[in-house]
């Protein structure tokens, strides 16, 4: 018998192991798109998705019918299927089947190109009687195969073609049925599940103990984690979930009925144990071990049982886990959260429900007491009774063989001549190429077509480098975000003298930030970084008094509004408020519903008026070196600022040839009535808005002291260059600028021209975005498009304020010259990188460290939410119900819905990120060698990696099959479509548009300024 301590260590280890499979999503107010299957990154992608799908009861790939539609419309081509089959089967594709008449490769190819379903025995009977399956040849046969079979039919003496067809299909059918009736149908033994609940459900679909346990468990956990929705908080939350819940449930109070009858006594015992003495963690671990023993689960099954028990309510369990490891991410209340508490509580409830359900089904379950209650015996018996999956009957197999024979060209005589071994081999080969295998290959083919399209375009598109060809008028640094691609393209299309760069949207300024209207600081940097500095926005000296008045007005209004809001729900004030307040509420109700855009405008106008005259500045320069209460320093010193500025400029390769105006533009997104609002903000800012980072960067780069420090280090920024910070709202396509009044008068003209450029680019960007919205006509004008996107942002009824990253597919790390003038359809992350200035690969390593997890994470989050919107995604938004200010449920009591909502991913094409890196392969390999997490993503093919040799421009794709080598890529075609401008290229289309060369945006020697 193991000692308690060993038990505890063992259970704790198993929990940590299982916790990897839980969704990595934290509270919804800082939604960071991450790989849904982070816990599986150790495995190759294809294997991982299949294993994860089994664990989560989800889909590994899109449905086969979807891929077949894509095949039919040419999105997947036969060439893609041939290529992925050749790569997947290798030499096995030449293996002989059916006595050497066909090869495995041919069989698989036909099964992919033509849909053949294995029907159930009952369905086969229907098919045989109600459809002409055994009277007519398949309509999708190619001509030669068809003629060959028809020839046989005619030879047997048929007057007409129809008779011939009937002859040959009938004969083939007889041959198939005779053949398949020889060997016996097989029985497939799967491994039975380990939880009582799943075992019971398999025996009796009407009994689901989770349906009993979950409502109570969800209520308890939700109450525990609540961040301030409930007016009455759960008592004793500081003692941990198990102690608090056991105390409450142990009180009884409520009439115990049914399965909950033994709960109060047991919970009282747990609550008693939770007193002083052992640390709470140990108590939970003890409870878990005791419950597993009582459930009668043998030790070897513990890991599986623990994993399954957690995954059964994975949204809530995952949230518990996230708050356990990152308590600082709790929006309001920090709590001592432990996944072990959750599991202990769950198992306590599970056992009670299981006993009840088994008792009702006639199992001898002891009422309660020490030792064995009969659950273990029941577990063993249920596993024995677990219904085995029967193999298909001979009719079903006959029909399958009949269909396949036509496709691969086997004649009735061929079939009759098969001996038993041949037949078994053939049937096994067909069965082995099951639906999941087919979908996997379809998916690979689907991705291959996408890669071919993009890589061919990249190979064909060559322009000269603007940096070296002339003096730019303005340089703009935007986020690498795929949504900034179109904005950059329009800026460049309008003026060849505008140059743009892409950098992770926190602009190398990791900080906690607090604006003048904020109540606490928020981290603005990738989630892997914990900032060590805090920056505050303060009113200018002259505006301090004005701001105080405004803040007190604001506080008063908020108090009134908040009071009315919460008051309307109480007993005494509620009666009063609701009977009077309705008349007042009618105004916003009608206004918001009938005139959403006007109302939103009026509201933002009112906010602007209130802010008018209050100039603010950032407290960037550190005054004292004493840390703040949270341990961070207030502001940066000059050396730190210089280092950050240098780092960004070096990363993007902007170290000389500065334009007079350099705009640094972060991004964020505002939308109403959208719990997932934060999912549309900047991933590089940890689900925050990157405006303050851009502003801070511009202020630092303009600071004479910083410039002096930079010059001392060899990075000279000319005196006439001015940096300007701004923020692009990706929902309204408008840019908000910071500190415009600090731009010197010498730049006034350049500035006003630039602001007009951005407004114009914004409206064109809005129009390009609008083509994706079904509810906006395709011929909308740019100004109307701008009004439309603005209206969506402020509309309570709009569940698609923007599509976010919903088309993301590519990431290109390299100079803009690779992609300038290339229409990438808002589908590419563009990371500026100058391979010529990075011989040691230090910059590449830095860039990949950020780009891999951020872009890869976003791409995979969208991929999985699209592949299975219910299993991995958050499902439709329509019944979503915010709970505890940490997440959403479906309706009144469901698992927390993690992942992205259906409305955000519906237009997404789920392909893995195509990561193109413009660097020699050695440098890439070295950089990856030092980045464990990114290397794992690359080597296990969670991203598709392509290297572009900067010297030759040749592409090479990373191939895991050959021991992780880069294999030269041969373009299918070097012809590239051309269009005068972006608008004329996408016009009239709603779906994805392939890359094309946009002449207006391309810099050729003639247009170079």
């Amino acid at each position, binding site marked *: 018998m193991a000692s308690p301590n060993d038990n505890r260590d063992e259970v704790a280890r198993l929990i940590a192991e299982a916790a990897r499979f839980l969704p990595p999503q934290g509270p919804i107010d800082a939604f960071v798109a991450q790989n849904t299957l982070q816990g599986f990154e150790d495995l190759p992608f294809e294997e991982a998705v299949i294993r994860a799908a089994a664990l989560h009861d989800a889909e590994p790939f899109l449905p086969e019918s979807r891929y077949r539609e894509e095949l039919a419309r040419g999105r997947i081509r036969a060439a893609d299927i041939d290529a992925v089959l050749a790569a997947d089967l290798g030499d096995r594709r030449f293996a002989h089947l059916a006595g050497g008449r066909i090869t495995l490769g041919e069989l698989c190819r036909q099964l992919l190109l033509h849909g053949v379903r294995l029907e159930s025995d009952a369905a086969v009977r229907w098919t045989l009687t109600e459809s002409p399956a055994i009277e007519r040849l398949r309509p999708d046969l190619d001509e030669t195969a068809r003629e060959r079979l028809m020839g046989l039919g005619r030879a047997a003496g048929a007057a007409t073609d129809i008779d011939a067809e009937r002859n040959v299909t009938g004969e083939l059918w007889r041959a198939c049925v005779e053949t398949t009736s020889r060997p016996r149908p097989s029985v497939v033994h799967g491994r039975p599940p380990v939880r009582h609940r799943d075992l019971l459900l398999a025996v009796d679909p*009407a009994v689901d103990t989770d349906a009993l346990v979950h409502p109570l468990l969800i209520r308890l956990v939700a109450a525990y984690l609540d961040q301030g929705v409930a007016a009455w908080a759960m008592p004793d939350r500081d003692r941990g979930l198990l102690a608090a819940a056991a105390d409450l449930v142990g009180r009884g109070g409520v009439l115990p009925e049914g399965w909950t009858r033994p709960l109060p006594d047991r919970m009282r015992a747990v609550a008693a144990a939770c007193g002083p003495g052992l640390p709470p963690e140990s108590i939970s671990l003890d409870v878990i071990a005791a419950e597993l023993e009582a459930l009668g689960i043998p030790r070897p099954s513990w890991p599986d049982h623990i994993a399954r028990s957690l995954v059964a309510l994975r949204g809530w369990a995952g949230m518990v886990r996230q708050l356990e490891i990152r308590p600082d991410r709790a929006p*309001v209340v920090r709590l001592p959260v432990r996944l072990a508490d959750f599991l202990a509580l769950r198992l306590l409830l599970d056992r009670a429900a299981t006993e009840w359900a088994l008792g009702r089904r006639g199992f001898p379950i002891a009422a309660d007491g020490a030792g064995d209650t009969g659950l273990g015996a029941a577990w063993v018996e249920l596993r024995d009774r677990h219904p085995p999956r029967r193999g298909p009957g001979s009719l079903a197999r006959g029909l399958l063989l009949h269909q396949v024979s036509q496709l691969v060209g086997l004649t009735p005589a061929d079939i009759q001549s098969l001996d038993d071994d041949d037949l078994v081999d053939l049937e096994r080969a067909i069965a082995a190429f099951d639906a999941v295998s087919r979908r996997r290959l379809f998916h690979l083919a689907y991705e291959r077509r996408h890669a071919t399209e993009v890589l061919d375009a990249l190979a064909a598109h060559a322009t000269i480098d603007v940096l070296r060809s002339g003096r730019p008028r303005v340089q703009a640094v935007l986020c690498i975000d795929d949504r900034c691609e179109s904005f950059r393209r329009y800026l460049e299309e309008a003026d060849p003298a505008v140059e743009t760069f892409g950098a992770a949207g926190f602009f190398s300024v990791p900080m906690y930030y607090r604006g003048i209207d904020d109540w606490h600081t928020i981290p603005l940097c990738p989630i892997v970084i914990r900032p060590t500095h805090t920056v505050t926005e303060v009113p200018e000296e002259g505006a301090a008094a004005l701001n105080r008045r405004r803040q007190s007005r604001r506080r008063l209004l908020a108090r009134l509004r908040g009071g009315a809001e919460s008051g309307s729900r109480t007993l005494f004030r509620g009666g009063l408020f609701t009977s009077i307040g309705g008349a007042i509420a009618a105004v916003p109700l009608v206004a918001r519903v009938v005139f959403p855009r006007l109302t939103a405008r009026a509201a933002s106008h009112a906010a602007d008026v209130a802010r008018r005259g209050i100039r603010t500045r950032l407290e960037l320069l550190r005054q004292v070196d004493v840390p703040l209460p949270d341990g961070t320093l207030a502001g940066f010193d000059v050396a730190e600022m210089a280092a950050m500025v240098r780092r960004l400029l070096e990363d993007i390769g902007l170290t000389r040839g500065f334009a007079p105006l350099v705009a640094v533009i972060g991004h964020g997104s505002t939308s109403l009535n959208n719990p997932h609002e934060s999912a549309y903000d900047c991933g590089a800012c940890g689900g925050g808005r990157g405006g303050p980072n851009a502003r801070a960067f511009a202020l630092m780069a303009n600071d004479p002291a910083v410039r002096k420090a930079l010059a001392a280090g060899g990075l000279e920024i000319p005196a006439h260059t001015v940096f300007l910070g701004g923020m692009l709202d990706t929902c309204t396509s408008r840019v908000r600028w910071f500190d415009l009044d600090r731009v010197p008068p010498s730049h006034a003209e350049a500035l006003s021209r630039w602001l007009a450029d951005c407004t114009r680019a914004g409206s064109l960007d809005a129009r390009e975005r609008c083509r994706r919205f079904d509810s906006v006509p395709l011929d909308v004008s740019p100004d109307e498009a701008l009004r439309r996107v603005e209206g969506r942002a402020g509309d309570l009824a709009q569940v698609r304020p923007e599509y976010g990253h919903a088309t993301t597919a590519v990431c290109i790390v390299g100079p803009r010259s690779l992609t300038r003038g290339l229409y990438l359809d808002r589908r590419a992350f563009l990371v500026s990188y100058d391979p010529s200035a990075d011989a040691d690969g230090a910059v590449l390593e830095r860039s990949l460290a950020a780009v891999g997890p951020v872009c890869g994470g976003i791409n995979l989050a969208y991929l999985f939410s699209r592949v299975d919107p219910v299993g991995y995604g958050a499902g439709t938004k329509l019944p979503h119900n915010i*709970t505890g200010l940490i997440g959403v449920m479906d309706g009144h009591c*469901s698992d927390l819905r993690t992942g992205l909502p259906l409305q955000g991913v519906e237009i997404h094409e789920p392909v893995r990120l195509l990561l193109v890196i413009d660097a020699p392969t050695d440098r890439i390999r070295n950089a990856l060698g030092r980045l464990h997490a990114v290397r794992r993503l690359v080597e296990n093919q969670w991203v598709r990696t392509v290297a572009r040799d900067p010297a030759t421009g040749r592409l090479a794709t990373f191939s895991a099959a050959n021991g992780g080598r880069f294999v030269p890529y041969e373009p299918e075609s070097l012809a590239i479509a051309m269009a005068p401008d972006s608008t004329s290229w996408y016009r009239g289309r709603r779906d994805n548009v392939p890359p094309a060369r946009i002449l207006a945006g391309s810099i050729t020697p003639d247009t170079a300024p």
Partner: protein
Amino acid sequence: MTAAEIAFLHDAVAGLVTWQLAAPAATLVAIGLPALVGRPLPERATTWIVGAGFTTGFLAALATLAALAARGFVPEVVHLGSLFTANHHAATIELVADSLSVPYVCFATGLCGLVNAFAGKYLHREPGFTRFFILLALFGTGMNLMVLAGSIDVLFAGWEFLGISSALLIGFFHERRNAVDAALRAFTTYRVCDVGLLAAGVVIHQAAGSGDFAQVFAGTWPNATSLLPPATATLVGLLLVFAALGKSGQVPFTGWLPRAMEGPTPSSAIFYGALSIHAGAYLLLRCEAVLDAAPVVAWLLLAIGVATAIHGAVVGSVQTDLKGMLAYASMTQAGIILAEIGLGLRLVPLVHVVSHAILRSLQILRSPSAMHDRHELAAALGGHPGPSNSTLLRLLPTGVVKGLYRVALDRGLDEPLVARFVVQPVLATLEAAAAAERRWVEFLGGAAAGSPRRGDDGGAA
């Protein structure tokens, strides 16, 4: 006013009132028929048609209101036809436009119109788009039928439309088990309580020889008096109150209401924030004369209303999800409103209903904004408001507070009570009946015919 003018006015009002009922019914047909033959209209046309129905209905109601106001709110009775007559017994289809029904139609139709406009965008690309609007039109028709009803029979018909559309919208996402369970729960509660209304109708017919309110009540709302004998009035009153309890989610039938938040947000807003939840209040307001005649019933109503209000406030204060919290807030107000009716007030509850419905539907429609709103509030106040544990709780001993919290977290005591003393006995009876049937079948048809299918011997909880 000359006789001709009065006749004209009467005809005009009759036309307008009919239109208020016909408009949503016509839209129901206009969008329902194409869907029935498998060619549903495009989204835009669907919303436009339903919107046009509600808007014209709303305008007609406003015009009626003006016409009525011009004549000092003398009720107008519109006779639509007669279902059947037997001897001195008649079941007629009558609508009545008076100072209760017409303002109520204005408000209900207006709200339906707003929710229609909202849902047109909210449900864009949803596979059940047409179904939602069919149910909304059905609801609007039922609502106006119930409100304008001039007889208990017509009112019952409208009441049933309301119930079925409500249950179907709760189960809108029928691929989820929770939604279907919740719909079934609401439907069962409705059906049980509908017995009260049906029985009340039968008793009224029996006592008055007609279901027309004009035959049952004398005078005009809100000063009508009951023509029923006192004992009958008490019986009818009890039955009506029983009917109202289910639809308005009152103690002890509160359990279905928080569970009903399973459908799309706009339907939750209009049903459980605004209109459906107040159907019970409307029924009792319409039949207020019965309550006047039966003080026992009025007192009972007052007690139930107060109990519900307290229950809703206590249970609601521990809810951690937005829609659940708003459901209990609605329940609290519905309880207060019923208590007001029990106190003999008439205009106050009417105003309260309208005002509460508007406020609450706005809150539910906005509930996905909660994160946004809370952050804004916290930013303005300089900190998160956090839980506002009331002073009352601080005065009670910890044990009592925890016990109360536990009860509140379990959604009160009425649910387990009903489960134990109503649902379980009924289920046990049904199971016994099923077992008896099996035995009979076995006895009559041999063992094979009656052998239990797998899963028959247990299951339903």
